[in-house]
């Protein structure tokens, strides 16, 4: 390994004592601990790291940092790894992306030959005829999708999340960022310093000995001052009120962690990003920025080539000359952009061989280094609402007016010596600590309302920092030739000019038409060059053209990190383990898992109809309502009247949304003078709670009602069947279950199986005599088992959801959301007596009044197929005979073991809702059958004698 490494020197981050092996496209190579993938590849003499998206041109390292658009690789099962940033690991399996069939020999590079026809947006202009071939064209275009390969069977990444509440977060660990963090910490603030690279220091890391000494001093001081330092971490997003998303990588056992931080003050010290130069051949391997070679030489001991032309317009370019010479690279020419020198073209096939200068010289070289200026990574400021402004003198953008809990410092804010940057950072850190103190004060007084405010709020510290100067820099964006502007999207300056000529002449339109700045670096390298080329094409200034808006995230963040460990709760009643131990078939119902049946739902029906059954109905939504104004709330939410509900009674109610559509239904019982229990459908529990709270909090904050959701606080068991009274009598001695003492639609509170505070009400969803018992959930399983033990001689058996569905259908009870839908207004139910239009007001009333007066809405009816063995599928359509005109649909259907025939509920047009009407039903297999509309909703016991008994 080789003449591509230079001797050990201070500042190098590689550890030559720890060699590592890895593979590159199957080839075994060696590197050192501390290498990035790219530095190790270059050290092995490999200069082509990938191919471009459209023309499959060979590409090599350009900036050699995280934003390098040309060094995205596949590492094992992980696509799109930034090889200039990712540290080498022993045994790593690295391969190039966008190559076909191989990196060296790529057939799609033939696209270069037809490149003159593949102008920006060419696909919008062709492939329209013949239309039949477009899917084929589209498939071919799809194969040009850039990027790596997702291994769908790979083990999922390990991710987690963390919350943090630092006073100050500093984004960027260069000299200004470190100084800011240090000053803020010394002023007493809790500080988190977030650095994108693997070490603190920023550009000082590839500077001279003095720079590195200063970096080391600050890094040591920062840690000593108790600043929490995160490296290989990025502030990826800034949201309302300094809610920050921080991605942290490189943790043991964790692939990527999302830290969600609420910061008092955010300091943006993101530095600057070196901008590539646009000229012919600017994407050839061997063309690099000054920062790239300085990093490679100083930090990784890599000699990037043998003979260099350096085009410099700033001190970074000058420093690159020094670094290259020190690394033993021959300097073939230094072209000074400040003195009017310019580069016109780079030539070569797979890397730079020769460079043409503006003065006509043609110089042989294998490296062309450019130092033409900076892009300000203002993303976090954009996300804060700032719109950075362009300074033509400095040829870059600067922050304008960020909100006062966001402060900018360092290269982002201006130029200066290291001392000046550190001084500005210190002033920023002090200001941030002072402002964070005020924020903290506010928060403390917000959260302790009960305490009288004794200390007046401190004054908001004014920003009195002396600004950093804006240095002057030649405006160098494009040479006299055209070249690549967006490397990852293969968009050239010529494409941009053409797009502008065609009328896509605002920065957003040109972006959308050419896809410039839309690739993985999201414009960090490309936006300013795009704007400059567009300004030139339009004869405008860069200020006039303006930039695109930078949106979150600042750097891509993995879906795994955003998701974290997936915590999707499964809800279950306290009896669920018993069900599972007793052969219950589970069913997922919304968030709940519950027993569907215990083997034979039809025999469960028969047992309940003939003897007694028990069902666990814990998912039933339950809200505890207390306060003098509960009747007002019930009157508002339900369509019927709740003024005269006596204590000890329950009542059925129907709820509508504001559009009159059925929202939910259930019974509510009055337990005490100002104490009620409301039940909702299982799936509607959260909706109704939200709904009630919303009306209370936004429309009627004066009403005295307190709502407590108690769905899981109470285990609910329905004891149903002719023998249910007899069973329950054995288990309670303080509730009189006599038919007259405890009538249908009444509620009692008492002891069941020795468990106090049980709520028992007598209703009949199944159509049988039945008691719903709500037990404090800790005793739910106990009461369930007691019921089974004490009812053994009565033949008690559990039944599941399916049996309940059959019985309620036999009884003709509709289910909100199954027999009604998002279009069903309340009159659909046929419960006109419950729609109290004379009542003052209730949610949905105007719509329901209209619907009633029109009377043309669909109706729920009971339907029995002519052939009793045919069970039409739920959703089977009801049509006018002999046509496809839809008149309704079957909403529920089952074979009834009680009646030994099929029974259905249907929603039908009012014209065919009359009892006795014959309906035509289209079955799922396309055949048609007939059915009869019934007199009553109830197929079974329409008089209700069983449940009232």
């Amino acid at each position, binding site marked *: 390994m080789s003449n591509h490494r230079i001797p050990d020197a201070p500042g190098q981050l590689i550890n030559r004592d720890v060699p590592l092996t890895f593979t590159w496209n199957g080839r075994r190579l060696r590197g050192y601990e501390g290498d990035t993938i790219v530095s190790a590849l270059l050290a092995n003499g490999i200069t082509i790291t990938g191919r471009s998206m459209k023309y499959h041109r060979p590409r090599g390292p350009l900036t050699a940092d995280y934003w390098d658009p040309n060094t995205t690789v596949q590492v094992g099962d992980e696509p799109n790894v930034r090889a200039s940033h990712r540290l080498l690991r022993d045994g790593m399996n690295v391969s190039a992306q966008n190559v076909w069939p191989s990196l060296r020999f790529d057939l799609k590079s033939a696209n270069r030959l037809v490149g003159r026809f593949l102008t920006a947006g060419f696909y919008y202009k062709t492939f329209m005829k013949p239309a039949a071939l477009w899917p084929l064209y589209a498939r071919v275009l799809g194969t040009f999708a850039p990027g790596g390969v997702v291994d769908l069977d790979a083990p999922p990444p390990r991710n987690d999340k963390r919350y943090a509440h630092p006073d100050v977060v500093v984004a960027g660990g260069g000299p200004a960022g470190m100084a800011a963090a240090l000053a803020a910490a010394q002023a007493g603030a809790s500080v988190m310093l977030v650095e994108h690279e693997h070490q603190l220091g920023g550009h000082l890391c590839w500077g001279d000995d003095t720079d590195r000494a200063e970096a080391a001093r600050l890094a040591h001081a920062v840690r000593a001052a108790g600043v929490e330092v995160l490296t290989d971490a990025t502030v990826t997003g800034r949201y309302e009120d300094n809610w920050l998303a921080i991605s942290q990588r490189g943790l043991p056992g964790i692939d990527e962690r999302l830290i969600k931080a609420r910061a008092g003050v955010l300091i943006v010290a993101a530095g600057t990003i070196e901008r590539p130069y646009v000229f012919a051949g600017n994407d050839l391997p061997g063309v690099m920025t000054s920062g790239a070679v300085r990093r490679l030489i100083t930090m990784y001991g890599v000699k990037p080539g043998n003979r260099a032309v350096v085009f410099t317009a700033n001190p970074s370019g000058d420093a690159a000359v020094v670094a290259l010479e020190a690394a033993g690279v021959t300097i073939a020419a230094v072209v000074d952009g400040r003195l009017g020198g310019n580069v016109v073209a780079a030539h070569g096939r797979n890397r730079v061989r020769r460079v043409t200068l503006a003065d006509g010289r043609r110089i042989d070289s294998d490296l062309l280094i450019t130092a033409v200026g900076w892009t300000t990574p203002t993303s976090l400021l954009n996300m804060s609402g700032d719109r950075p402004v362009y300074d033509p003198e400095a040829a870059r953008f600067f922050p304008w007016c960020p909100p006062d809990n966001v402060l900018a410092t360092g290269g982002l804010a201006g130029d200066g010596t290291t001392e000046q940057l550190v001084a500005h950072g210190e002033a920023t850190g002090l200001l941030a600590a002072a402002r964070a103190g005020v924020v903290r004060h506010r928060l403390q007084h917000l959260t302790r309302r009960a305490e009288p405010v004794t200390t007046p709020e401190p004054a908001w510290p004014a920003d009195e920092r002396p600004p950093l100067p804006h240095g002057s820099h030649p405006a160098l964006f494009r040479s006299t030739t055209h070249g690549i502007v967006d490397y990852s999207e293969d968009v050239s300056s010529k494409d941009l000019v053409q797009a502008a000529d065609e009328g896509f002449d605002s920065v957003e339109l040109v972006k959308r038409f050419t896809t410039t700045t839309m690739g993985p670096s999201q414009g960090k390298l490309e936006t300013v060059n795009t704007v400059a080329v567009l300004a030139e094409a339009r004869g405008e200034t860069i200020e006039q053209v303006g930039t695109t808006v930078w949106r979150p995230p600042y750097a891509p963040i*993995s879906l795994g990190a955003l998701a974290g460990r997936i915590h999707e709760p499964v809800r279950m009643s306290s009896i669920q383990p018993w069900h599972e131990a007793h052969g219950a078939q589970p069913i997922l119902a919304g968030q709940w898992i519950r027993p569907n049946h215990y083997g034979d739902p039809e025999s469960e029906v028969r047992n309940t109809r003939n003897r007694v059954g028990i069902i666990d109905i814990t998912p039933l939504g339950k809200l505890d309502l207390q306060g003098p104004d509960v009747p007002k709330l019930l009157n508002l939410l339900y369509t019927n009247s709740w003024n005269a509900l006596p204590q000890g009674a329950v009542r059925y109610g129907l709820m509508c949304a504001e559009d*009159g559509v059925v929202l939910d239904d259930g019974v509510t019982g009055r337990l005490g003078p100002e104490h009620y229990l409301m039940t909702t459908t299982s799936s509607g529990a959260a909706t109704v709670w939200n709904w009630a709270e919303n009306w209370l909090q936004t429309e009627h904050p004066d009403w005295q009602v307190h709502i407590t959701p108690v769905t899981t606080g109470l285990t609910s068991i329905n004891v149903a069947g002719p023998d249910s009274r007899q069973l329950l009598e054995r288990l309670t001695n303080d509730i009189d279950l006599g038919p007259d003492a405890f009538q249908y639609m009444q509620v009692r509170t008492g002891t069941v199986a020795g468990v106090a505070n049980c709520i028992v009400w007598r209703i009949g969803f199944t159509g049988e005599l039945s008691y719903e018992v709500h037990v404090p959930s800790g005793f739910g399983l106990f009461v369930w088992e007691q019921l089974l033990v004490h009812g053994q001689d009565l033949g008690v058996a559990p039944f599941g959801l399916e049996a309940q569905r059959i019985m309620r259908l036999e009884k003709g009870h509709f289910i909100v959301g199954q027999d009604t839908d998002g279009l069903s207004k309340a009159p659909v139910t046929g419960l006109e007596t419950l729609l109290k239009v004379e009542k003052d007001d209730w949610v949905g009333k105007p719509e329901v009044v209209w619907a009633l007066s029109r009377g043309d809405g669909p109706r729920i009816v009971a339907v029995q197929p002519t052939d009793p063995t045919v069970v039409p599928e739920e959703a089977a359509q009801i049509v006018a005979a002999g046509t496809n005109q839809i008149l309704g649909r079957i909403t529920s259907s089952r074979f009834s073991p009680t009646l030994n025939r099929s029974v259905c509920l249907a929603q039908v047009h009012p014209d065919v809702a009359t009892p006795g009407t014959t309906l035509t039903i289209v079955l799922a297999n396309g055949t048609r059958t007939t059915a009869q509309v019934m007199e009553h909703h109830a197929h079974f016991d329409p008089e209700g004698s069983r449940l009232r008994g």
Partner: protein
Amino acid sequence: MRQTSPVIKQRRAAKYSLGGLIRRGFSKESWPRVWREPEFGSHYDVVIIGGGVHGLATAYYLAANHGITNVAVLEKGYLGSGGSGRNTAIVRSNYLTPEGVAFYDRSLTLYNSMARDLNLNVMFSERGHLTLAHTDSALRTMHWRAEVNKLQGINSSVIDPAEVKRLTPSLDVSENVRYPILGALYHPPGGTIRHDAVVWGYARAADAYGVDLHQKTEVLDVLCTGGDGPEGKGPGGRVVGVRTSRGDISAPLVVNCTAGWASTIASMAGVRLPITTHPLQAAVTEPVKVFLPTVVVSGSLHVYVSQTDRGELVFGASVDPMATYQMGGTLEFTEELASHVLELMPGIGRMRLLRQWAGLCDMTPDYSPVMGPTPVEGFHVDVGWGTYGFKAGPVSGEQMAACVANGRVPELIAPFGLERFSRGDLVGEKGAAAVGH
């Protein structure tokens, strides 16, 4: 259904074709401007506010179907800068109500022939659309939609998990996940389209007919006379023009196609719309090689996803619960999105989110649009599209053009009149729309 048949032909635009690309590749001759930068006129027969797909399609069909070309489209930003450029570009016609099916099927027909009609490849990718069911009740709704669709002649059916897996191998159809996939509604004609291209296609074709497209032209006021309110605005009056950031325009007909800003613009004419504006967020990942061949929607998990031909996954979700004009996007959206997507496709946890954004949706109480005339004579609206305006763009433009040109409300959009809110005649699209995209 009447097919588009141009009444007049005034095409000045150069024809886009492979031949043209090759010829210009050799000759270096450049393509002419896609649309003109027109002079700012002081009078138009029709002014359309909003340069998105609805506004531009209306302008195009006014010219193409009705010969009305003295038309201005006013756009505050650049063409397609609102919802038209922010949506996730999914089109389908497997709606729930017969009215919805008929409407969107017409839209899909127009999308299908759009590339040829407008001579611009809108990259319609008829890749199949899957709406996943994770619960019994969702599966029941899928069956319902399928049965309605079959009777309407729409290609749509319920498929089982094995078939879901065959069509989309990246989906986890196993039973031991939190929200197992029990089946899906499969709609082969559904797919994606390049939304920007639709905007440009209509803009270019409208411009070729002589329609003036004014970008960076903000409407500051709608000028009225004779109305009950101040300055002659409000019911009983009529519209006489608009005041813009570039000057006044007189026009007897003004069409409001401004989506998220619909209620703001309407209030300038003294017209109150029952509309609130909510952001709808979306996000896109870094590109990877194509692995997701279909459009996948999960109502239960509030997410829809497709992969572009550039290799990016595009995600959307449901609207934010709070009414706001803020388009910043939230972190919580990306977290929830990621966890739901990984529930469906656990193999993509290493893919990275590249960009998030939001668009503004004009939500009505019944999730149905408001189309047609208003109590201010000459002031028309095509608003209230909420989360599915893009799918309806072509047919809305066609119908609104007919409405404006003929002074009669076409049958297809009659249910969507503003007066329904005072007649109790809401359209129940909510149930259909609630299942997402």
